[in-house]
Each structure stands twice: as C-alpha cells, then as structure tokens.
C-alpha cells in the first residue's frame, strides 16, 4: 500500500470536511457528529457563539464587561473569542479581565501567572481581587478550619461575592464567565440529585443576577467542553490546567463522571439535559425556599439561620 494511501485511510479515509468539502477533517463535532476541517471548525465555533450572544441579547453597545478569568481553558478561550467577536462584529464593548485569588497554594498562584500572560497576549486590562483582602481568610486557612468537606460550597459563595466586588472596582456593567455546556448539564443533574428545586429553576438561565448588583452571563452555555479544548489546542492558546487540590472531595465529581460516560454513548445528551433543565416547571403547589438576607451585612443568604456564609466563617 502506498504511504499516502495508508495515511489517508487512517484519517477517515477519503472523506472530506462536511462543510467545505475541500479539506481533510480534523474533528468530529459531538453536537452534530459532523466531520470538519480546522478552518471550518474555527468558523462554526465562533459563529455559533456570536449567534448565542446576539440571539440572547447578552450585551449592549458601550457596556463595560468583565471576563471572569481564572487562567483555565474556558476563561482563556472566552477572552480570546470575545475580543475577536467584539472586533469583528463591532459589539462596542469595553472588555476587562477579572481574576479572583482564593489563596490556594500550588493551584491559584500558578494560574494567576497565566492570566497575567493573557493580559499581555489579548491586550485586556486585568484586575485581581483576593479572598485575603476581602475577607481576611485564604481558602487554605478556611480548609484548615473546616476540614476537607464542603470546601466548594464555601469557595463558590465567596467567589460570587468577590466577583461582585471586583466588578464594582472596575465599574463594569456586566460579568461574563466561561461556564460551558458540560458544566451546566452537570449542575442540572447535581440539583436533581440533591432535590435543590430553587437552584434547579435558576441554573439554566443564560443571564442571572439582573436584580442584583451585577448581571452575569454565560456565552458558552451551548458550547461543548471538548470543542473548547480542541479550539485552544489548534489555536495554541495559553492556559493552565490542574485540578484544584480540594476538588476530589466535591460531589460535582460524580455528576461530571456520569456526564462524561453519557457523552461517550450519546453526545447530544449534554444539550438535551440543558433543554430539560430549561423546560422544567415547578408545580404551583410546591413550597419554594425563601432567599433571605444576612442579619449582619444584608448580602443575600440562602441559609436558614440568616447569616451569609462569609459571616458564618467569621464566627
């Protein structure tokens, strides 16, 4: 067999990209099972995100927007694509990078170096906000106090507030985060597994917090994690990739494992779970938990004893 034939036999045979019919395919899209080439992949990836942004009216011209940037794959690709689309389609946005330093040694200190490089690579001004400055506690200190359970619960709540503070410092109108389709499908499952009806009804919204200090939106809501990673790989985008040292104990890990197994069997399951989440309606006879405010500082609190989580740690 000729060498050339052997190589093309391996790379999907004589098939060509489904879209352009000219070039060799390099990727099979989980969303559509199409086999597409690199150039067409860049185009559909970017165009679909543009359609999500426009179709859901995520932004208004002239807005100052902070990109929650951790240095990880999702936020790096988000910063890259959003700057590109902002230029290409004239969204008229003023973009910033906002990074939170939770004080997790060996994890956050390294990823912050990546965000600092992103600041230079993408030309976006960077603001860093730390738990230590805001709350007087690093996550390492908190974990020493509470042990290895429920770390993500504390960290997630603190991060949300830290992002609000950082956004206020930057005087932005909106926050964007890199949550992708896989993340949202995991969250839907998690909330079902826990019977958390309040969160279930909110977690598929593409924009949240419109009634709070800073609205946040998720342009990657329908974007598969696999495609984000492939995009970053082909475009050689610089990102940091280590698991947070406290995450192995997180319940989310089970939902993630399950979603990954599901994706292997039926890739569309991820988008279908999101659709199910979007279309859930809570029975009118169900009593919904009330969201109160912290006795001490007035910030939102879902805790029965109405002290916001930051005040619970201080006690």
């Amino acid at each position, binding site marked *: 067999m000729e060498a050339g034939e052997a190589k093309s036999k*391996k790379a*999907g045979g004589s098939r060509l990209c489904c879209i352009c019919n000219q070039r060799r395919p390099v990727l099979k899209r989980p969303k559509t099972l199409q086999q597409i080439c690199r150039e067409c992949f860049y185009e559909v990836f970017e165009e679909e995100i543009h359609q999500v942004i426009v179709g859901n009216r995520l932004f208004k011209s002239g807005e100052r927007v902070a990109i929650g940037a951790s240095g990880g794959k999702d936020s790096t690709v988000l910063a890259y694509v959003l700057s590109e689309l902002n230029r290409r389609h004239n969204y008229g946005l003023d973009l910033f990078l906002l990074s939170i330093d939770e004080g997790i040694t060996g994890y956050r200190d390294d990823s912050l170096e990546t965000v600092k490089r992103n600041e230079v690579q993408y030309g976006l001004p960077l603001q860093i906000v730390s738990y230590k400055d805001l709350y007087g506690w690093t996550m390492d200190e908190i974990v020493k106090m509470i042990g290895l359970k429920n770390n993500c619960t504390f960290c997630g709540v603190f991060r949300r507030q830290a992002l609000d503070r950082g956004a206020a410092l930057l005087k932005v109108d909106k926050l964007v985060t890199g949550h992708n389709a896989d993340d949202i499908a995991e969250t839907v499952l998690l909330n079902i597994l826990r019977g958390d009806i309040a969160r279930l009804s909110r977690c598929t919204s593409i924009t949240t917090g419109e009634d709070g200090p800073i609205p946040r939106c998720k342009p990657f809501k329908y974007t598969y994690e696999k495609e984000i990673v492939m995009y970053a790989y082909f475009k050689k985008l610089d990102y940091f990739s280590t698991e947070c040292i406290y995450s192995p104990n997180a319940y989310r890990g089970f939902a993630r494992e399950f979603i990954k197994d599901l994706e292997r069997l039926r890739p569309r399951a991820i988008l279908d779970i999101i659709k199910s989440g979007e279309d859930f309606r809570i029975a009118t006879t169900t009593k919904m938990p009330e969201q109160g405010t912290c006795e001490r500082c007035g910030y939102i609190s879902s805790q029965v004893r109405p002290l916001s989580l930051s005040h619970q740690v201080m006690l």
Partner: protein
Amino acid sequence: MQLTLEFGGGLELLCDSEKIHKVNVDLPNGADSDDFTMTHLLSWVRTNLIKERPEMFMKGDTVRPGVLVLVNDCDWELSGQLDTVIEDKDVVVFISTLHGG
C-alpha cells in the same frame, strides 16, 4: 517504531511531569505493522509511561471519558478510536479536559 507522545491538560503529572515523550515502541512478537492500533499503544503507555494514578488516564481498555486523543493532529473519533492504526513517526496527543476552566 518511533513515536512522539504528548500529554496535556494535567495528564503530564502522571508521567513525571514531562509533556513530550519521544519513544521507541517494539511491536508485539510476530505482529504485522498494520496490526498495531491505539489499543496496543494505550496498553504500552499504561505500562511504560504512567507512573501514578492510572485511573486518571484509562478506564477499562480505553482512555478515561474526558480525555481527548489526537493522532497526527486529528481527532481519533475520525479514525476509529481504538482501531486507529499507529505507524512509525506518528504523533499522538492526549489532552485531559477534566479540570477547572
């Protein structure tokens, strides 16, 4: 056969923190060069390169769900996944997606 194997997305931590490995893989005795597939390569990698936590890399006979595989910059889903034939001078990339974004 000479192969270049790359590990990304955190997988390099399982291989002595080395991202790129240039290796020489011996074909199983009596095997045709057409018979060497990703199935064989994965087994070889698990035995020879993965120094810790093999469950992060493989589940059963294939890679752990969430690990992407590219052969010569091409998604292995296009070439039959485990049935992909591996040849001399091929570049195989393993990228884990299982970490924060």
